């Protein structure tokens, strides 16, 4: 059976997690203008800059964190499952973001 290296599995999973996190953050910040959105604006001067910085940092930290699991062998996941997780997360995140601005905002 084909396997993928630990950084591919770990950063692939991190990509899926942070995609969902980013979409959820969109809903939370846009629904909480006086609290979350205001805090994000204060941190860098613009909520979008804070959003991007937070998600990129989360991607890096979660990726390296997952790579250290299993006594340094990294996250164990089959390539097929990783594909399903990444594609599923990206499609779901896209639908959450587009759906929010289309119907809820």
């Amino acid at each position, binding site marked *: 059976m084909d396997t*993928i290296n630990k950084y591919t599995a770990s950063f692939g999973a991190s990509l899926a997690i*942070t995609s969902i996190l980013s979409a959820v953050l969109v809903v939370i910040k846009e629904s909480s203008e006086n609290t979350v959105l205001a805090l994000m604006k204060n941190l860098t001067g613009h909520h979008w800059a804070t959003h991007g910085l937070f998600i990129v940092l989360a991607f890096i930290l979660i990726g390296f964190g997952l790579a250290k699991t299993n006594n340094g062998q990294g996250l164990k996941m089959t390539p097929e499952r990783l594909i399903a997780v990444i594609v599923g997360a990206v499609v779901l995140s896209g639908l959450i973001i587009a759906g929010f601005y289309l119907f809820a905002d």
Partner: protein
Amino acid sequence: MTEVILMAHVLFGMLCIIAAVWLFVDVLNANEGNQGRIKTMSIAVAVFMWLAYLVGGYWYLVFYAADKAVILKGPWPFAHNFFMEMKEHVVIMLLLLATFLPIAASNNLVINKSARKLMLWVVGLVVLIGVAMDGSGAIIGIGAKVGLMKG
């Protein structure tokens, strides 16, 4: 000057899509001869995407407010309310996908069919989302144009 910044954003975005299509074809035909090029092109996709993101982000943070006001007062307010709002957040996902490519390309794609399949899915997503972002940018531009024509 602002037009140059905006055009550079579009240029880097288009180069990212072109490099991704090139990468897709190379991965489909992965062999010992193109392994090095696959790694180089996966880095190129990530670099072009980061440049598009940083240049576009600078323009968005510094200059977009004036365009936004024109769009919202014009006949196409959805160009901002939906397309810009959606684009500015979906593009972060695209940035992560492009950044992941050099990592996925570090596997031996010649002997590892599953790693090749993973690369094809991720590159495919980069191309599809990239084209969607490009189209959204065009709608935002037309939104500003029709707003100015009305005024």
